[in-house]
């Protein structure tokens, strides 16, 4: 089956600055893809090119098999977009805002009215709120209203730009759960964010993006193996100050660092807690604490960009 979004050597230059540099990206139907990178790495520019809102300098984009630069209306009918810090018309009610978008999408008004009600229920905005002016809404409510707009539109692909930015952790968590719910409807999702730890939980696959280039791509766990040399990080505390060489001698151990005396951080390709505990006790030392980190993208990210010198 054809990929839902496909870019080939996609490049965008603004004068001498290259915002996106030869990007190859493929999204299969029904997956959640996280485009992760620091601010200013070219994520939004990539999204705008996928939507046909900015013309690529060179390279190819296909969305649902259609070129967004040449047939933008077709692409924009089938793709939903939630910009970062989405705005609504403050002097109109939530319902009026959504039905305006529905009219632009040529959804018959009776059907639009039904869809608006069910969308508001699904995102958890109550019936009184529907007829309130959006000017009174909090940032979190606006963000949810943006999601309701996508539900009304019923797109095949959804593109979200920094959807959790500015939300408190609880709201962000709820919001991501709602996004995950879109996947169950069979919608393909592209999620751009710099908040790795929030986003990694909902993504099937992620791409690490920096200076307009995608350096790495794959499922979170695979990336952890590739970059950290192992998916497991063990934190250890002991009164034994000469433990590091011993720990490195263990099978599957990758790297051991010690930041303070007695505190060790060990990376490994397997869960070595059992072996570590035995080693410490056999030496007659005290095992004060031990803790296993789940591999996290933050670490992948930090570690990766430690190794790759900043291009700029």
């Amino acid at each position, binding site marked *: 089956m054809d990929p839902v979004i496909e870019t080939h050597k996609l490049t965008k230059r603004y004068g001498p600055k290259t915002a996106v540099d030869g990007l190859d990206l493929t999204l299969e139907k029904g997956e959640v893809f996280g485009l992760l990178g620091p601010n200013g790495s070219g994520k939004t520019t990539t999204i705008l090119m996928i939507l046909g*809102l900015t013309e690529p300098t060179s390279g190819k984009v296909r969305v649902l098999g259609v070129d967004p630069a*040449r047939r*933008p209306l077709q692409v*924009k009918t089938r*793709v939903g*977009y939630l*910009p970062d810090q989405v705005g609504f018309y403050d002097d109109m009610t939530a319902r009026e805002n959504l039905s*305006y978008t529905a009219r*632009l999408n040529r959804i018959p008004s009776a059907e639009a009215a039904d869809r608006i009600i069910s969308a508001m229920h699904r995102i958890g905005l109550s019936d009184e709120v529907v007829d309130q002016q959006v000017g009174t809404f909090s940032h979190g409510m606006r963000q949810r209203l943006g999601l309701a707009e996508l539900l009304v539109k019923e797109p095949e692909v959804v593109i979200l730009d920094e959807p959790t930015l500015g939300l408190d952790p609880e709201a962000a968590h709820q919001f991501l759960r709602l996004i995950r719910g879109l996947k169950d409807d069979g919608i393909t999702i592209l999620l751009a964010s710099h908040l790795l730890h929030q986003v990694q939980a909902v993504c099937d696959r992620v791409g690490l993006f920096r200076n307009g280039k995608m350096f790495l791509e794959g499922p979170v766990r695979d990336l952890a193996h590739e970059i950290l040399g192992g998916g497991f990080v063990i934190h250890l505390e002991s009164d034994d100050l000469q433990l590091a060489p011993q720990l490195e001698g263990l099978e599957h151990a990758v790297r051991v660092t010690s930041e303070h005396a007695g505190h060790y951080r060990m990376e490994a390709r397997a869960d070595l807690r059992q072996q570590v505990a035995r080693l410490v006790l056999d030496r007659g030392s005290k095992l004060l604490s031990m803790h296993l980190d789940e591999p996290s993208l933050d670490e992948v990210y930090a570690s990766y960009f430690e190794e790759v010198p900043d291009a700029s």
Partner: protein
Amino acid sequence: MHREGSPWQGVWTVMAKETADHLTGARMTILEVLMFLASAGAIYAALSSVKSGGQDPFVFLTLFTTAKAPIPSFVGFLGFLTPLVAIALGFDAVNGEFNRRTLSRILAQPIYRDGLLLGKYLAGLVTLSIVMTAIWLLVAGLGLMFLGVPPSGEEVARAVVFLAATIGYGGVWLGIAMVFSVVFRQPATAALASIATWLFFTLFWGIVASLVAQALSPSPGSLQGVLAQAGMEQNLSRISPNTLWSEVVVGMLHPAVRSLGLVLPVQLYRAVLGSPLPFSESLALIWPQLTGLVAGVILLFTLAYVLFQRQEVRA
């Protein structure tokens, strides 16, 4: 590159929404009050000086043009209120969407940028037409009541052309305001720039035209020289939409006017001065000015479109 899909898609949706916004907004109420007071003042001035039952066959048209110091005529009021209303309707058309962060959300819906721009422009024009027609009817209706003389068919035709030209004149200023709303991110800056442009054309363009004509034209030692300089000055002054509109007003509301330029005595030989031109002749006289106003609207819209198309959507 050929693009697919109708450029009209979404235009009427945008137009309906924007027109509703204009008509219900507080800004509109202020303008309506202002326009109403102006026309009431003007009609009072006109009625107190126009004598009904006189010899003038076009007494109805004098309603629009008669002033009584210190109150200017209805036409005088329109001359500066029309640009003001048009600017008020257009100065935040595009940058307002930027600042509300709604632009990228709307452009992600199936609509072209020119569709959005056209929808907004048409909404402004429809609103302007509603306001202008209402005031025009108000003045005509009051005149009818107090004068007690029904207008002739020709007077109605002349007054309708006058109304259409005034809407076109407003359309030019709406276009200017929308161009500035694309250029400047701050609505306040766009409003200021529009008003500065209006002041420039109202106060300074006549002076500039005359200076440029003096500088470029050959020294006016001869009659030809004088004529060439005056002709150039007049043509230069016609770059201003204000000049075009006031020439239309003169041509339409003063049926006796036979020429908008210089007239030499030799051209008036055997002319019956003071006798009115037929409607068709007056229309022919001001036809270039009407065309100029329409062309101005099209040029300004195209300029706004090109600028908007080149702009990045991201805030």
